[in-house]
């Protein structure tokens, strides 16, 4: 089901214009004292319950802007 995303610059566009950037998980951790395991967990491990999550998208075919939106992986719709 082709859904659309709301680009803050271009408005609603077909999802295939965008690149998925994964869940929002805050800024990069500080590196002093960061263990290898902590780093690899932060990099790759995710909790993905079937409920809306905040995530990053890039409008690569359009204005070239990264933005955040909340989407429900159970319906593929943006949640406002």
């Amino acid at each position: 089901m082709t859904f659309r995303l709301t680009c803050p610059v271009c408005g609603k566009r077909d999802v295939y214009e965008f690149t998925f950037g994964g869940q929002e998980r805050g800024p990069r951790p500080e590196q002093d004292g960061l263990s290898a395991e902590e780093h690899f967990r932060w990099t790759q491990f995710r909790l993905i319950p079937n409920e809306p999550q905040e995530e990053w998208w890039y409008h690569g075919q359009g204005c070239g802007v990264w933005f955040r939106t909340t989407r429900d992986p159970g319906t593929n719709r943006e949640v406002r």
Partner: protein
Amino acid sequence: MSWLRPRRLWRPAPLERHYEFVIIGGGIHGLATAYYLARTHGIESVAVLESHYIGFGGSGRNTAIVRANQRTVENVRLYEEGLKLWPVLTDELDFNLMFFNCGTLNLGHSEAAMNGIRMLASTHNLVGVKSEVLDPQQCAEVIPGLDLSDRPAFPIHGGLYHPPGGIVRHDAVVWGLAKGASARGVHIHQGCEVQGIDTSDGRVTGVRTSLGSIGCDRLGIMAGGYGSAVAAMLGIELPIHPLTIQAMVTHPFKPFLHTAFSSGAYHVYANQTLKGEIATGAHMDPQVNYTNDATAYYLKHQAEALVELMPALRGVRFMRIWSGLADMTPDMAPIMEGELGYEGLYLDAGWGYFGFKSGPVAGKYMAQYMASGERPEILAPFRLGRFLENRYSGETAAVMKYGHWD
């Protein structure tokens, strides 16, 4: 004359308060594990919980191609054993799984791709699995109608022909395993949605379901694309992204495509089913989701790719598109793990789009793992811990873009 006497393939069973082994997921992996727990390990108290009906998920949505032409020896060994299981299971279950040993052909569309193919063929032959490097002409002998000219954007440079591969009737595997498991006392509960997992003192004690609570000693999460959602119930993070992958079929034709083929450059794979349809699968949608949404985009994408590879397919029509979930890991190899933070909790997940071909063999070894508590040697490469040590399996050479994994 058993085929003339319609009898239930699997028996309805009462929901008991406690089972020794509970498997979440009534797909091929879950049913195979249950089957082997009962058959090989003689365990009498096994339940398979399925939220819809058995085979609802990826087991009934894949394009049914089976093969053992992986990139690394660890994977090749596992999948090769999987291939050899189809005839064995057909006999054991007394159910025709319709294994069509038609071989597979992976097309290479560049010099670099052919180098990769040479490496694959060399690896396979070294461990005794048949694979051949074919030149374009030989490819067209295997798949008549391939466009060998330089018209396509990615002309065909050759291919990897893998005779042991083929296709299997996917629903038959589900029903056959259900039949075999049920006959050996496994309880299959359909319409039983797991809503929570109970633990106590670091042990798994049971599951809460839409049909009531069930106690258990050992719990296997074998929920295919929904595995990460189930793990999330216990707050377990996994390096798995559930993504939809779409497939479609054309109208049926008399047989003209006698080998399954695939093309990485075009993101397609296709085979002609026993019913005569061309079943073809596409690339994945990039965003994590638990829907089974198909998109118009892939219908068009797939047509563009197929007619470029094989112009005769201009004359066919798509009649159905659907999608299923692929549980992708960063290295495109699965995770089979028994040390998941809770005693008695086992995970068989991350199969991506290899979950069908691996089902029975994964079930066989997961059953051994769960029954004995000892990780079988063949599963050693599929530890979860490899992701914490930056030791990818090498199943794919390409560096994955963060887009899917970040």
